[in-house]
Structure formats: C-alpha cells, structure tokens
C-alpha cells in the first residue's frame, strides 16, 4: 500500500494555499495526497504559484513546473478566445463583458495566478442575445447539445445560452444574460451589472469589483453540490483581499449584494472563506455563524488522498437541495422524469 487514502487531503491543500510555509518538512505521503487533491480541485496551478521559490522535493518541483506550463498555456488560450469573441461582437456594438477566470486574467487580478481556465464566460444584454448568438454561429461556433429538450430547457429557464463550441479551435463559450438560472429565487440585476461594467485597456469589459464578488458568490453557492467549491472560494478569497483595501468597499459590497438579492449567500460565503482560507472579512457583514455552516465546510473538504470525493450522502443531500432551490417541486419532478427516461 502506498500513500494514505484516509489522510485529509483537502485540508492539506487549503493549509498549503493559505500558508505555503507549512509545506516545509512535509512527508512524501502527504505531498502525494496534497498534489492529487490539488489536481482534483483544479488548484494545482494555483498551488504551484503559491509555492514558487519554496524548497520542495525534486519530484514536486517537476510536477509544479509542469502545472505552470499547463496554466500558462491555458491563459494564452483564454486571452485568445476572449479577443476572438470581442472581434465577433464588436461590429454589432455588443460589449464583451468577461466573467470568472478570463475576467480575472484580463483585469490582471491575483485570483488569476496559476488559475485553470476552461470555458470562456461572457455576459450579453438580454435584448442583444439573439444578435450575439447569430454572430457567434456565423463566426464558427456551433451547438454542443443538439438535444431538443436540453435546448428548450436552456432557453426557457437558464441564465445562459446552451453552450457553444468553436469548430476549429475546439473551445467552449457560455453566453450569459444573467448570473443565476431564472428558476432560482434570487434575481440579481443583470442590467445594472452590465451598465456598471468596467472597460479595460484592451477594449474588453469586466464587472466592477463588487459585482465581480456578487457573481463569484452566486456561482459558488448556486452550483448546488459545491462542485469545484474550493477553487471558487479561493477566487473569492483573492478578490476580497485585493479589493478590501479600497475605502468603503465593505459597505458598497453589502449594498450591492442586497440589491442583487444575494445578501444571505454573501454572508455565508464570507464565513466560509474566513474559516477555510482565513480571509479577512467584515465581521458585521459576515454575520453570526450558523450551525449549517459546518455542513458546507465538511462538503468543501470532502476529498481524499486519491483525489476521490468522500461523504457521498452529504453530497447527495446538497445535490437534491440545489435542485429544490432551482426549481419548484412539480417542475423538478418533470425535469428528473425526462432525464431518467433518457438515461
């Protein structure tokens, strides 16, 4: 038996990200668990940046170097996809407002250091969605899911178009018109987010800081079973640390979150970030700890040294909860019925 499956690998990971010095003197089996968990959580590139300049075993140095090559290449592609999208939409006078990883990268924020970036996410005003869609289809993007039910579901209920993939570059784009599915209870003000987006030198747009956090929070909480949660929460930690230095930041954030109906998710997210990454947060805004916070923390850290998800039952509970949050019971029943019949 090599390695130790039972080791709390996710805990090693968040500790190493938080405080890189803790990796000095780490035993080989712990390094193995740490690296495997970091890969499984898509945080290996981030870890590589955090451990830059630290003394690590030779094998680890090679692995982290490789992770940097992966991340750098991903960033190159992300820049490229963003500028291709902008080139397609600019003639129609549609702003390309970047979201998530590509936004952090384009804006030069520390959240992008070593971050893995997959699909390109952009937001387009709802009344320009049809124009954007046909422009993208004309420029080489194609539908990924030709299934009529999925397509109809996306168009009726989701916060984004069905995913598109580029024919020759093989990269996906998600075109959002708001930040949460229409079936969810909070209804953030996408119009305000777009109107207040900030223009970068490159001509691309990103959300203003408080909206960036609000979106990160909605994204982190809405993905019901907290899949990729440690990465999403790391983004939030980095954004908060970077933005909190601006005066009046916390009160602006509170006001904006209230406006978007994201006050409660924001409070909980702040408490989770403080617990997991020791993020300095506004104590008043974070509010009093709730007993259910513990369940979130347990689920976020449910990853063993083989990269496997643990706590299957808790995960299932969160998964069911996410669907209940997203849909009314009758709609959920219909949705699952159609999905089950197809599987």
């Amino acid at each position, binding site marked *: 038996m090599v390695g130790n499956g039972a080791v709390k690998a996710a805990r090693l990971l968040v500790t190493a990200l938080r405080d890189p010095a803790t990796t000095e003197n780490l035993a080989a089996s712990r390094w193995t668990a740490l690296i495997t968990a970091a890969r499984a959580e898509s945080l290996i590139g981030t870890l590589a940046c955090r451990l830059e300049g630290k003394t690590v075993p030779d*094998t680890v140095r090679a692995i982290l170097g490789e992770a940097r090559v992966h991340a750098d290449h991903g960033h190159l592609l992300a820049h490229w996809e963003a500028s291709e999208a902008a080139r397609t939409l600019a003639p129609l006078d549609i702003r390309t407002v970047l979201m998530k990883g590509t936004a952090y990268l384009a804006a030069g924020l520390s959240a992008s250091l070593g971050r893995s970036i997959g699909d390109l996410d952009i937001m387009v005003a709802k009344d320009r969605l049809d124009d954007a869609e046909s422009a993208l289809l004309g420029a080489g993007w194609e539908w990924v899911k030709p299934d009529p039910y999925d397509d109809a579901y996306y168009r009726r209920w989701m916060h984004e178009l069905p995913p598109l993939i580029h024919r020759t570059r093989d990269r996906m784009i998600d075109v959002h018109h708001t930040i949460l599915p229409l079936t969810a209870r909070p209804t953030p003000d996408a119009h305000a987010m777009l109107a207040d987006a900030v223009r970068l030198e490159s001509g691309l747009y990103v959300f203003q800081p408080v909206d960036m956090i609000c979106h990160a929070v909605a994204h982190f909480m809405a993905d019901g079973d907290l899949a990729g949660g440690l990465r999403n929460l790391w983004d939030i930690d980095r954004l908060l640390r970077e933005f909190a230095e601006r005066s009046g930041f916390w009160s602006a954030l509170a006001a904006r979150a209230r406006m978007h109906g994201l006050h409660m998710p924001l409070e909980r997210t702040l408490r989770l970030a403080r617990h997991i990454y020791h993020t300095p947060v506004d104590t008043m805004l974070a509010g009093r700890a709730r007993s259910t916070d513990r369940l979130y923390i347990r689920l976020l850290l449910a990853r063993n040294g*083989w990269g496997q998800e643990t706590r299957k039952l808790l995960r299932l509970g969160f998964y069911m909860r996410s669907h209940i949050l997203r849909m009314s019971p009758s709609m959920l029943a219909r949705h699952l019925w159609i999905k089950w019949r197809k599987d």
Partner: protein
Amino acid sequence: MRHSCLIRVGPATFRIGCDWPGPVEKLRRMYRAYPAPPSTIPDYTIFLEAVRPWRRYIRPSMAIKADFMLPDAAPVSLNHGLLAAEMAMNLQMALGWRRHLLLHASSVEKDGRALIMTGMSGSGKSTLSAMLGERGWRFMGDEFALLDLADGSVHPFPRPVSLKDGAIAAMEAEVDESRFGPRMLNTPKGDIRHMSPNIVAIEDMQKPARPALLLFPRFGFESAIRPLGKAEIFVRLTQASTNYVAMGETGFAALTRFVEDVPARAIDYRNGEEAISLVDELWSEMAR
C-alpha cells in the same frame, strides 16, 4: 483504495490504485524487473474503481479515474484491468506531460543513436520496435518518444509493448513466455497481449540517445522507400505530438531542430522480415 502499486517508466512515476487485487497483481508481475522509483511521490495517480459500490462484487465493472481524464471514458471489464491501467498511464503522458516534446512514436537505439518510427495506428511501428528490440537493438519504447527540449536527445519510455492480434503470435515465437502478460481477448482494441521489454531496455531506461533516423512505416503495401519534404515531415510530426501546441515556442524550437537534423524516409512493407531489411539498409546508408 485497497490495492495499489508504484511504477516507474523512464522519467515518470505512476501510482495505481484499484478496488480489486487482480489488476494490481498483474501489473506487479508485468513490471517486476523495473527498478523502484527514486521517490515515492508519483508524477501521476490513477485509480480503477467500481463504477458503483455494488459493482465491486456483482458483474464487476471498473471506471478509470486519474489526474488527467477524458470525459465519458467507457468502463472496462475486470478481466481487462491491465489494459485499463496501461491506457490510463498513456493518457497521463499524452495529456499531462510537459517536460519533453512528446512524439507518438516507437524508438530503438544502437551505439548511442536512436531510430524513431512514427505512423498511424496499424502502421506496425510498435511491433517493429519490439522485433528490433530482440535483434541487437535496445528497445526504447513503442508508444512515446520523449524529445529533450534542451539538447534534442530522445529519452526512452519503455513500457511493456502492447501487442495486437497477429503480432501476438509473431512475438510469442521469439520471446520467452515469462515476459508476457495475460491474453486479453475481444477488448475494445481487439486481442491484446503485453510483452515486457528485455532486461537491457529496462536497465537503460534512463539513458537517452541522439536521434539518427526517422522512419514513417506503413504496413500492407509493396516494399518501397520514399523521401519526404521537410515541411511534410514537420506537419506529420506536429500531428504525432500530443503536446506540441501546448509547449508553445519551446516545442516549436525542439521540433524544428529535430526536422533539420534527422534524416527521414517513408517505408512500405508487407511483413516483418521485409521491414527489418529495409531498416538495416536505411540505417547503414543514412543514419547520422
């Protein structure tokens, strides 16, 4: 993970875990001559787990999970565990490895100089390298040739050869039974039997060689030798590399140098003996 082992092939160490003992025992047997890795920290982790908890016992079916995965990879039957592990190791290299330019090619060495053979699946490059490896050449690998980004040398990756269909009997006639793995019939890739490289190939698996000749073999056509233009060679090699694009400028520099330096020919052949005589002829005429 109940059962696991560490395997070192060339520069890469794999940790393989499994819900069942069988596949790990077969791996241990297949790799018993390989030296232990210098560090217990693996480069990549692979685990073969039951697709559902009860499928460990009832109609066992294993899912291949690893650091690098393809979406929607099909589950594999327990009998094909060794194949699953080998495929997963290849996949980690193809998708993960960024320390060399990876060429989907077989390679053999003589006097410190390497012969590299690349081509489509079915071209016979794998079988050819296995045969040459038993006839005076050092076998360096049947799947990947690792091109050094700094000095242009080729590094070995000598996993067991994955013999298919007709090639199985051909090698069984030449090689001791103890070096073969189990026969796996009707896998998604046809009949498969793995053959461990000989002890020279394993002992020298850290020793690179200078590339001296590049061949594009093609099986099933009348014996022929054809020259290729450098541009065609370059493009074919970019298609044969799993990480050329991802390696950016470094990869471009390494590949350009390779194409400039290494003489190349396409060869057609109908059987192993014909191929070997073509190789011998070209090696004595052209090898740099």
